[in-house]
């Protein structure tokens, strides 16, 4: 790797570092010592900022590395990321303004805050909070995996066999990220997201305009890929027949239609249950910002689709890497001038910093509000909560780092897979709760527990050619040979349990608790009673 590329890379990295620290002065608040400011950026972001922030949240570095990698490896099902990011926006349009309204009126910072207010159940809120933290941790770890892949291709890092010395650059990058998240809170990723997305857009647009021409245009690229897959399938016919290898294709086979569709729908439903998307959404100024963004954010999906196809371009370009995740960074290194390769690598690494910051803030908010304040220090002041959250954001990131470096990368990927299954089990409590209080709080709790247990067990039972457990996100629909996404199956059982148990519990006279919200809370907007621009931290 040339000095020019490394120089450009380091320059851009330093630029966002300065921005991250300066962010504490941006849209300056009287004090950052409360969660509304540190953890939600003052709850005042407009359409423009929210577009970058939520975009940075959803389209992470890991997505940018992993999605083209699946296509490079010949698994067309990986392209489900595109329908998934189409399906998600109408859902955001319908559901999230209601969550915004009720959260604003009651000062809720996390989805678990809402669940506690709605269902009057601390155990249920704790379950939602723990699920959120558990699902977010491996997600942060995967952002590190994305950074690591890029750093490997650049060749930054030393050859030492000691894992600490070898990954020193990763430590440095993460240490810097931790420091400015600590001092600036959600303002840091919001500001850095501008740089990240500008760079990503420039890189992708240049890549999709310039690269295909180098290899005879898209038609030739698809032809090359198809013949390459066909010869792979012919060479490995025996292994494929024996189930030791997976056949490659540019489109999902007919048997995989349900897999493709259920992955898209399940991931879309899971996405806005993730604490970091809720954090992004609650940081907006009013309901219209969310709906306007639901119409504007698909621009990123277009980008993601084009990026995914770079996995095919890498095949046509003759990129040969053992780890498919390196295919696109290697393509950039081979085909771009050094300085532009530096820009591209910086774009991906900065693309990991933004979501990692938001995710660690979201996890810290959950810990502080729903575990620390709910159980450990019930009279915590706003300043104490902010201090707690800042410390936990450091801890969460450190945990993710140890995770990736000391344990195996595969372990993080398996857990991320489980994270999607787990987080979807909070949907009945949150989404159904936004519309009706009909479900009994203990029925929701039981549904959650059953969904978590069954989903985990199903995932444990999935073997792949390379691993005996957690080999993939798909299982056969019971009684059929049709593969579907585990998370959707577990959610179905979760909902059945919740619906069946509700009348039973009610008939048995089990206390349903008091709903602390009112119907008009769900439609309140900026300017209504109790919904002010800047929440007064002293009012509590």
């Amino acid at each position, binding site marked *: 790797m040339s000095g020019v590329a490394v120089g450009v890379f380091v320059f851009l990295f330093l630029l966002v570092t300065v921005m991250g620290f300066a962010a504490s002065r941006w849209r300056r608040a009287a004090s950052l010592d409360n969660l509304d400011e540190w953890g939600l950026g003052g709850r005042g972001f407009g359409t423009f900022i929210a577009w970058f922030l939520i975009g940075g949240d959803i389209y992470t570095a890991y997505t940018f590395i992993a999605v083209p990698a699946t296509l490079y490896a010949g698994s067309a099902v990986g*392209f489900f990321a595109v329908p998934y990011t189409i399906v998600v926006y109408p859902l955001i349009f319908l559901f999230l303004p209601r969550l915004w309204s009720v959260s604003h009126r009651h000062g809720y910072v996390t989805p678990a805050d809402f669940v506690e207010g709605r269902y009057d159940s601390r155990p249920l809120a704790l379950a939602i909070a723990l699920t959120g933290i558990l699902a977010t941790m491996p997600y942060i770890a995967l952002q590190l995996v994305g950074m690591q892949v890029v750093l490997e291709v650049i060749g930054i890092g030393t050859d030492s066999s000691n894992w600490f010395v070898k990954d020193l650059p990763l430590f440095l990058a993460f240490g810097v990220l931790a420091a400015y998240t600590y001092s600036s809170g959600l303002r840091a990723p919001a500001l850095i997201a501008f740089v990240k997305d500008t760079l990503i857009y420039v890189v992708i647009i240049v890549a999709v305009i310039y690269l295909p021409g180098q290899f005879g245009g898209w038609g030739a690229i698809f032809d090359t890929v198809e013949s390459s897959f066909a010869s792979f399938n012919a060479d490995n016919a025996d292994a494929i027949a024996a189930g030791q290898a997976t056949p490659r294709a540019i489109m999902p086979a007919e048997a995989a*239609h349900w897999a493709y569709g259920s992955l898209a729908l399940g991931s879309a439903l899971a996405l806005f249950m993730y604490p970091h998307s809720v954090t992004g959404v609650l940081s907006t100024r009013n*309901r219209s910002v969310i709906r306007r963004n639901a119409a504007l954010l698909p621009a990123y999906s277009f980008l993601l689709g084009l990026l995914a196809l770079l996995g095919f371009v890498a095949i046509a370009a003759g990129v040969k890497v053992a780890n498919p995740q390196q295919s696109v960074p290697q393509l950039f290194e081979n085909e771009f001038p050094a300085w532009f390769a530096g820009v591209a690598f910086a774009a991906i690494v900065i693309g990991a910093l933004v979501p990692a910051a938001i995710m660690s803030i979201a996890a810290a908010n959950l810990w502080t509000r729903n575990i620390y304040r709910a159980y450990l220090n019930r009279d915590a002041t706003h300043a104490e909560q902010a201090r707690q959250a800042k410390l936990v954001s450091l801890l969460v990131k450190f945990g993710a780092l140890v995770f990736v470096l000391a344990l195996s990368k595969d372990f993080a990927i398996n857990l991320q897979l489980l994270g999607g299954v787990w987080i979807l089990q909070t949907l009945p409590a949150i989404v159904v709760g936004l519309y009706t209080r009909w479900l009994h709080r203990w029925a929701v709790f039981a549904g959650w527990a059953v969904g978590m247990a069954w989903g985990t067990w199903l995932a444990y039972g999935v073997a792949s050619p390379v691993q005996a457990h957690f080999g993939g996100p798909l299982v056969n629909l019971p009684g059929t040979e049709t593969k579907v996404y585990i998370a959707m199956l577990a959610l179905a059982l979760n909902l059945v349990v919740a619906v069946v148990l509700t009348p039973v519990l009610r008939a048995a006279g089990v206390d349903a608790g008091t709903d602390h919200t009112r119907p008009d809370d769900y439609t309140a907007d900026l300017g209504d009673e109790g919904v002010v621009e800047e929440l007064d931290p002293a009012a509590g």
Partner: protein
Amino acid sequence: MSSNARWTLICVLLAPAVVLPLLVGVYDRHDPELWGFPFFFWFQFLLIPVAAVLTTSAYVLARSGEKKGDRR
């Protein structure tokens, strides 16, 4: 327009953006190609602006409702 009529219309507008991408059998084919892209790929790319236009129309409708105090 009554509130129910408005929100039914909004849901009708949003429905194709949720349902179409999930019907893989509809677009799982190679032909016709467009600029070298198999149908499978260009159709999904086409769905993105279509979904954006539908969501924008839904937004305009919801917004006009909000001005009259009709929120959901």
